[in-house]
């Protein structure tokens, strides 16, 4: 052992620690610290503003897993994701393909479909509220013209969650479109020429053999990001339905908010946050794992 690797050199090691320390400090202060605090809080019975705090072990989690509202909320969040993720991914892909293939007006359409992403969702939710108004809203007036009775979109328990999911798709399709466009730009044109020589003459064949496989990594990324984003749905629920009617649109983040900040059961709210963090972490790990397998594509 004559050659000391750089890591064994005390001076260099110190320098290395010094160099990564700013990142570490930020990580601990902004991410690890607060997350740990939430985990600790979730093991207590603390209520906002209360003078005392007791450790109650997994009491909050036991209560949580026996709570009808929590399961309803958990289920609703998944239903919402299962509608919004495929909806916004395929709509985004379709828009990207159409706009890339358009002969003119690309910049205009790109901007138009990206607008919902840049606007504040709270403000847009208010606009949707007007459009969805049961008697004087634009949507029902248009439906009436073609002879369909629209009904109440947000007060009907079997429909309210899907109405919100529709707004979710509208809001996130634009971002997915832009991500897919970046993916499309990265496909080398000679692949299409090669495919044509090999006999893939129709548009569908070219999409199936070249575009879709080459978009694999982009699709994975878009799907996971859409999943995490739709798991975080909150604004539209808060503005339009407040989780109602009868918890039909209760979602995880909204339950957390009401428990911790309306009912002031902070420890219980923290337990919901921990569940939420675990799910998001699982989604992220899934992306990393699946991404590693697919690296040979690019």
């Amino acid at each position, binding site marked *: 052992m004559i050659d000391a690797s750089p890591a064994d050199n005390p001076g260099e090691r110190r320098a290395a620690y010094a160099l990564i320390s700013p990142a570490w400090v930020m990580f601990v202060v902004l991410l690890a610290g607060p997350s740990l605090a939430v985990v600790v809080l979730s093991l207590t019975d603390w209520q*906002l503003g209360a003078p005392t705090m007791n450790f109650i072990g997994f009491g909050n989690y036991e209560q949580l897993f026996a709570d009808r509202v929590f399961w309803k909320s958990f289920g609703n969040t998944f239903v919402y994701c299962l509608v919004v993720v495929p909806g916004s991914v395929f709509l985004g892909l379709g828009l990207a393909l159409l706009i890339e293939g358009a002969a003119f007006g690309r910049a205009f359409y790109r901007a138009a479909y990206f607008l919902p992403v840049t606007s504040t969702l709270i403000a847009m939710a208010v606009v949707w509220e007007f459009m969805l108004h049961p008697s004087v809203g634009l949507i029902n007036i248009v439906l009436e013209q073609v002879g369909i009775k629209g009904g109440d979109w947000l007060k009907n328990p079997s429909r309210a969650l899907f109405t919100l999911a529709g707004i979710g798709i509208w809001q996130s399709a634009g971002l997915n479109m832009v991500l897919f466009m970046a993916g499309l730009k990265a496909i080398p044109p000679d692949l299409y020429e090669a495919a044509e020589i090999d006999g893939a003459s129709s548009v569908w064949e070219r999409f199936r053999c070249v575009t879709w496989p080459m978009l694999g990594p982009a699709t994975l990324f878009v799907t996971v990001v859409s999943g995490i984003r739709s798991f975080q749905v909150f604004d539209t629920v808060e503005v339009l339905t407040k989780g*109602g*009617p*009868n918890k039909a649109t209760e979602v995880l983040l909204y339950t957390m908010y009401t428990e911790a900040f309306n009912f002031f059961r902070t420890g219980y709210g923290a337990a919901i946050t921990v569940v939420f963090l675990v799910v998001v972490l699982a989604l992220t790990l899934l992306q990393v794992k699946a991404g590693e397998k697919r690296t040979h594509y690019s």
Partner: protein
Amino acid sequence: MRKLLGMAALAAAFVAGPATAQTEIVVQYPIPDIFKEVHEEVAKQFMAANPTIKVKFLQPTKEYEDATQQVLRNAVTGQLPDVTYQGLNRQRILADRNIAQPLDGLIAAEKDWASKGYDGALLTLGQVKGKQYGMGFSLSTPIIYFNADLVKKAGGDPDNFPKTWEGIFALAKKINDPANKIAGFHFDWDITGNWMWQALVFSNGGTMLTPDEKKVAFDGPAGQKAINTLRLMMTDGGMRDVSQATALQDFVSGRLGIWAHSTSRLGGVTKQSQGVFPLRTATFPLGAGAESRLPAGGNVAMMLAKDPAKQKAAWEYIKFATGPVGATVMVKGTGYFPANALPAKDPKMLGDFYAQNPNHRVAIGQLPSMTAWYAFPGENGLKITDVIKDHLQSVVNGSGKPDEVLKKMAADTQALLPK
């Protein structure tokens, strides 16, 4: 307005001479769209009368809910305001957590307190477990608003409005005209804190819990009557399952005949209905005669200051704001009524105002049946109100049978009460 206020404060400072140990008190209040001008005017007059005290307002919070939230957060960070205005049913949270200061000592030290106009019944609205924590500032009560044109057209007599729910539903049925987008009746059952549910139960002589606060009591005869009335509103009264915002829009635009809501909106609705239709009000139907009660809504001033000097200044300010001068400013600016009996008796303050505004007088007539806006005990107190709201929703949208819902609602509430 702000400039004027600044100048007034400056002028007051000059009158007081070189800053003689001015005490500053910080005040927080909710619902600026109703109360901003009222609080600023009260503070202006207070500082003119008490040059040694300076009142500073925090950014007001939008609703009662965030006002409580803000105080609880401030309690954690140690930056509490000295005085806060809180919804009547939120006093319990601040008292239970020892954040609010009891006022009994200060009241005992007052000379001729009896002549200050704070009647016993009104004072009880600010009490938690027998201690005085809040001083009533602006109070409201559920009443019936109606569009006199629509009532007349349906064959009703605005001067002789029905006193029972059956009478109201019969009238509402005749007003109802879906083809012309005119609705007969709406009852804002989902006002925060189960307020209107409490109104239905209390007005039938019931209570939320037993007197020892251990067991649910709203599943008794009064509660059964209340929940059936709620269902009859839909079936007989033709009420639609719409939000409060929709009902309000419909009423002020003349497309809703009869509307049960809080008096708190009377000021605003009076203005909005001017030139659209003649607005009238009527008493909330009382189903149990002398046993009937109605919950008070509105807010109280609470003292959070711990420092004796600040407490003294805060107390002076609370007395001023809830006393005759503050009450006069408040009533003229809103639809609430005061928790102080003096100004209504004085023609120069509010006597003439009530004589000229019979719509406001209806609420004063309901004063004898006033009782506290009930807050459930224990750490799940606020969660219980949400559970009740969900059950009531299922009666309103017809997915549950009233008597079955009441049973489930009682069981769910019981499970959340302190053991």
